[in-house]
């Protein structure tokens, strides 16, 4: 069974850049693999090793300008390949930049069609940068596949997939027929960090880049934010200092009483 894994080149949330006026300088933020997508790749590799087939890494570059992002983007895709993906199929097109989850899902559905369909699509429960958790449902709908979200454990048996959905208060066991799109949580496995050696090897694996017209997409259902704003940290950021631990502790207790958060 072939498995497609959706991998996002997300803005690196550890390297958020903004200017003094509170504008988000999104073009200055480097790209990094979206954390939960690593779990998805790892799970796909596990399933492939057990069931056979191929693991396709699918990605759409959604942050521009695409020309300047290509190196970062390829690194992300190679990282996914280094985790065990077999080949990568990616879409780079200025029109896909910040087009929103629905448009991204639409593009991905055309990419899956191009591959002739797959038995299973896996993705992370959300991307690190946008955290929208929407692509998987849209994609399932476009492909006519079943959709299961927030899965922390899954097993496949005879055309059926059994999932444990990790909800806030309990775990729900769900069963559905393949093909399906499944979003996984960070708890599903513990992916290894790839080493340079594995990444080097991944350079030997096929990576095919498509434009929107290559996969027959002309119109996109876009939903782009009108603006972005840097969050002004509203915290006080006071470091309590003192000559001794006693002094620091005592000063801190004063502050907490001042704030009215101590139960007296």
């Amino acid at each position, binding site marked *: 069974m072939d498995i497609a894994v959706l991998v996002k080149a997300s803005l690196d949330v550890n*390297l958020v*850049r903004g200017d003094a006026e509170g504008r988000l300088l999104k073009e200055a933020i480097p790209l990094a693999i979206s954390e939960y997508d690593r779990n998805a790749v790892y799970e796909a590799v596990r399933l492939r090793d057990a069931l056979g087939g191929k693991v396709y890494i699918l990605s759409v570059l959604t942050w521009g300008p695409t020309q300047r992002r290509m190196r970062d983007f390829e690194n992300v895709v190679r990282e996914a390949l280094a985790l065990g993906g077999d080949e990568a199929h990616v879409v780079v097109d200025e029109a896909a930049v910040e087009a929103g989850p629905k448009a991204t899902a639409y593009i991905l559905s055309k990419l899956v069609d191009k591959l002739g369909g797959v038995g299973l699509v896996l993705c992370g429960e959300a991307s690190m940068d946008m955290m929208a958790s929407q692509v998987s449902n849209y994609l399932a709908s476009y492909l006519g596949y079943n959709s299961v979200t927030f899965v922390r454990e899954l097993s496949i048996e005879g055309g059926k997939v059994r999932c444990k959905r990790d909800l806030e208060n309990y775990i729900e066991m769900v069963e559905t027929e393949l093909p399906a799109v499944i979003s996984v949580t960070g708890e599903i496995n513990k992916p290894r960090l790839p*080493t*340079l050696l594995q990444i*080097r090897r991944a350079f030997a694996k096929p990576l095919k880049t498509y434009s929107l017209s290559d996969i027959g997409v002309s119109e996109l259902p876009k939903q782009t934010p009108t603006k972005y704003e840097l969050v002004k940290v509203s915290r006080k950021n006071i470091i309590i200092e003192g000559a*001794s631990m006693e002094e620091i502790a005592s000063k801190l207790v004063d502050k907490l009483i001042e704030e009215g958060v101590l139960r007296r």
Partner: protein
Amino acid sequence: MSVAGIEHFLFVEDLEFLVYQSLLLAAIIFIYGLYRAYRRWFKPGERPPLNNIIERIGNLVRYGLLQRKVIYKPLEGTMHTMIYLGFIILLIGTLLRAFEYDILIRLFNTRLLVSTTYYIFKLLMNVGGALAIIGIIIALGKRVSYISPYLKTTTEDVAILLSLLYLLVTGFILDGISTWAYRREWIGLYDPIGLMIAGLLDTYPWVIALYRVIWLSHMLLAIFLVAYIPYTKLFHMIAGGILNTFFARDYAPSAFKAIENIDEIVEQGGVPGGGSLSMLTWKERMDYDSCIKCARCTENCPATLSGKLLSPMDLILDLRRAMDSGDYDAELVPRFIDPEVLWSCVTCGACVYQCPMLIHHVESIIDIRRYLIGKGENVPDEALEPSYNIMRYGNPMGNDPMDREVFLNELAKDLGVEVASEDIEYDYVLWLGCQVSYDPNNRGIARSLLKILRRMGVNVALLPEEACCGEPIRRLGDELLFKELVSQNGELFSRYRFKKLIVMCPHGYNVFKNEYPLYGYRIDVIHHSQILSEAIEKGLLKASGGGEKVTFHDPCYLGRWNGVYEDPRIVVRSVAGDGFTEMPRNRERSFCCGGGGGHLYFEVKRGDRISRLRMDEAIATGAEVVCTACPYCRIMLSSEAPQDIRVLDIVEYLADKIGD
């Protein structure tokens, strides 16, 4: 007999032929043993190197024959020297005897051991035998009294000691009977022990029969003990004492071996490093057969002493056992070695320093780690983070590279330090390094140093960018990334013009000085303690104050690995004066802070923390300030320091006391 001399084969003329037959058999066994060892070490086509022959002979003499690393331990050193010296005398004596009988008498009908020569010979043989007996009794005493908890005693250890003791005692009994038989009257005090034994005998008829039995057992045991040297622990004298000292690594011990063709290996789908015995070098394999199980490495290993799974001696012996299995292509981990053993090593080099056989334990540990990292298996998750962070952020902690830029600008603004330009030549460039650039607690080291250097009028600049020097990931075994960082930084250095690179971190200092040359980049580096001590000696820097009690913690990569012990002490003493006090373990015997070998970035959660043990030692000196000369040590020790003890780099301590 007209002159004093030996009566050869007294009472046993009829058994003489047995000696030659046994010797022939023994020679076959012995030579086969050597051949077998050769095959254990060298793969077909591999040849031991014979370059630097003078230096190699020097090592052989210094460490092999003169046993420089054996003798410094009072009890064990004395014990070993007595046995070693005793048997050397006895061996030479026996050879002389054989030479006289088989060559001089047979071929030339003349003698050597007569008159005065004979008297001296006899006396020396007495002394040799006595020395060896005392040595062996000490050794046995040490074994039964468990003086060292890490010294394990096997049947072989006891059997060998008892065999040697038997040889020595029977040797004296044979000597005594001979004296009784023909030289009681004239030997005098040149054979004190023989004479004593002879005095006990009378004209008993069974004395001759006893002599014959003892002689036979003595002769056979002696010959076959030698024959079996390559098969027993006695092999340490050949494998370790002679070969391993002769073939010892001839480059800096802290420059772990390079894998020049690593790119090819990876390209061809191979995994670099020592995954199996056949992937290790002949030198590493020779190391494993050189171990004499003295446990000095283990007794000084911070991992062992803090309750981790690693014991360097046991690791070497496990690898020897792997060789015994004959399966040179089997993966070593986890079949022969628990991966946690390898990951527990802080690469402090205490084992390497201690080993009398010049075994390089850490070389093997890193070699095998390289394989594990390459495979991505049997590696603690956190141990992969530094490499990943370097690829993504350029530093092993995963800090925002912008933080360094901000700090660099601060230094330029506050202290007026120049950021290097490619067009200007500088005397020095100061390498900040990741731990000083990113850790706010360590930034004071750079500030203090730059302040002092600028006061001294030193022409120094900072580099606008730095990649990680690669030290932590090289210790963790990511050689591929290391090689890439070497070319990245090498290219960076080549763009700027400066005479020397000042490095504040001994890890960086070592890697630039000793390991970058392995991949073709030579950089003239100096540690800041060296610049400071020179300035102090020349009277350019004067500190006042002190008064408090200060101790100094030797960073492993400055001290033990690179021999810089005095410079930082000169700096500390210039301020502290009489307040300077040493910790019990200092200089070569210093105890690691626990942060080396990549352990700043991951932790093996077992037993005590090494940093805790070291801080306790510092606390026990009564010091109010613990100085070190390494940001790694500073981090590790600060995290354990009680409130009333300050942990400072030597330059912070100095800057404090020379004011602005």
